[in-house]
């Protein structure tokens, strides 16, 4: 058999299982959740599951899938397994935009999301233009350096906005946004980000095999009949669109874009034709699992970003410390 679909099918099954389980998990009527029988009798439970849990669960899946796909794209295009959408000023740009929306436009959802998406795009644009203008090092190094500078610029902006914010009304909103969470998600928020996130995700998935070519040395990539600049621009644009869309509702959710592509490559191999779909499924599973814990563990909700960072860091250390298993020859 020339290439195996097994990891993919196992992940799909796992995701479906977790999805259906997540509908019953929660703090109503009492933790750890409700029984299927209760759902049939209890009208409140039905409304809760349908109007709150289901859109939230789907948003968590979309969030994880988009961040993992964008992470895979950035790692392969930048030829660096240690980057994530936080590089290139995307995450910090989104955080700045959201803070700006909370401060200037009183945090109306469309303003926060719109400005977050806009500033995430600006973050990428600034990083790209700055890298073009730099006269030091190779293209990838310049892109990463530019990303660091633009991220620092935006995070100082976030700091300034926090300082200016009303400590009783606006500051908590900004802080909660930067911690990340899906507590306010309903069908309307899901549908507002779905088009952009899905467009980015589908574009990335369509280019899944082509992405491999873009991870080779520039001269080899070019010699294989690609248009490297154009194809990179399309994929970076798709990655940023998907990332900006989901973090505009979920806030800063760290580590998924870094850790999930790594695990996907371990499971399915380095070839993005297999590792990218695996990362998408795994990202959805990871984000959904973290969000289930976030809304169930404590009476008050734990910010999602804290859990993804905690779980992500533990997994990351596990991956780095454990030696790579020798693949069968």
């Amino acid at each position, binding site marked *: 058999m*020339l*290439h195996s679909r097994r990891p993919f099918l196992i992940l799909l099954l796992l995701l479906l299982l977790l999805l259906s389980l997540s509908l019953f998990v929660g703090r109503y009527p009492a933790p750890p959740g409700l029984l299927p029988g209760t759902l049939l009798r209890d009208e409140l439970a039905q409304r809760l599951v349908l109007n709150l849990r289901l859109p939230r669960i789907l948003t968590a899946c979309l969030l994880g899938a988009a961040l993992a796909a964008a992470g895979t794209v950035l790692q*392969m295009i930048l*030829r*660096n*397994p240690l980057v994530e959408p936080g590089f290139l000023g995307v995450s910090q740009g989104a955080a700045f935009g959201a803070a700006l929306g909370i401060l200037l436009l009183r945090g109306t959802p469309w303003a926060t999301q719109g400005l977050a998406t806009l500033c995430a795009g600006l973050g990428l644009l600034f990083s790209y233009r700055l890298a073009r203008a730099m006269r030091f090092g190779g293209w990838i190094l310049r892109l990463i350096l530019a990303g660091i500078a633009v991220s620092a610029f935006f995070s100082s902006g976030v700091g300034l906005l926090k300082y200016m914010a009303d400590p009783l009304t606006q500051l908590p909103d900004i802080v909660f946004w930067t911690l990340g969470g899906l507590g306010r998600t309903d069908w309307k928020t899901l549908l507002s980000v779905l088009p952009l996130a899905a467009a980015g995700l589908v574009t990335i998935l*369509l*280019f*899944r*095999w*082509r992405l*491999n*070519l873009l*991870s*080779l*040395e*520039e*001269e*080899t990539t*070019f*010699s*294989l*009949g*690609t*248009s490297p600049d154009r*194809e990179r621009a399309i994929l970076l644009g798709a990655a940023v669109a998907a990332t900006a869309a989901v973090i505009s509702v979920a806030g800063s959710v760290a580590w998924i874009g870094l850790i999930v592509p790594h695990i996907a*490559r371990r499971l399915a*191999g*380095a*070839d993005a*034709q297999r590792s990218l779909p695996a990362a998408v499924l795994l990202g959805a599973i990871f984000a959904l699992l973290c969000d289930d814990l976030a809304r169930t563990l404590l009476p008050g909700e734990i910010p999602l970003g804290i859990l993804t960072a905690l779980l992500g860091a533990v997994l990351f250390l596990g991956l780095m410390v454990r030696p790579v298993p020798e*693949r*069968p*020859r």
Partner: protein
Amino acid sequence: MKPMPLLAISDLYFSHPGHDVLRGVNIEISPGTITALLGPNGAGKTTLLHVVLGLLQPQAGQIRIAGRPLADYSRAEMGQLVGLVPQTEHIPFAFTVRDYVLLGRAPYLHPLEVPRDSDRFAAQAAMVAVGAEHLAGRPINALSGGEQQLAMLARVLVQRPQLLLLDEPMAHLDLGNRSHTLALLRTLQSEGITVIFSTHDPQAAANAADGVVLIRSGLVLATGPVTEVLTAEGLTATYGVPVKVVEVQGRKIVVT
């Protein structure tokens, strides 16, 4: 009548800001030959290969492949026409050799397509042809220099280019792997591929090539068959140190 050259380069100029690299290069390469691009470090060999590939745009001059100017070909057509084995290839991800070789099919696939079974069979056949089938499941970034060379040659073989450019293919190899690579160049030639390789080693040119292009400081000093161009005078002029050429059993040996 002389056959149409596969590659014709005329009056080619290329410069980086403040630094002329190629200064009026004229070369014609006949189809089905192996040509060594021979010259000291910094002579402009890699730049010349990159200009032929279309990666670098020359300031003046023209390059024709099979009679048509480079600009007339689409990117996919160029990928089907010209292949490249770079001097070194650092790959940060652990692709299996099988997956890596398969990337050579890219010029034949639409950007949104994934490889078909026929592509996988072609990749398998290419690995067998270069003797790399035992490496198929190994990660590309954990191979020795010689093994990686085999994987790269299988990748360009599956690309089926008419013209193959190799940048210093022998530079990082030991004696055994060098002669193996040499034999493989002949295999590629017998598959109808025209080969140009750059080297700073006159002996490699003498052993592997039919024709030689002597290049120094962006100027072509001489072109022609190995027997005519690889002379003591020519090599002395190219490298700036006294070079002798002796013949042993009909083969040229270069001595400094």
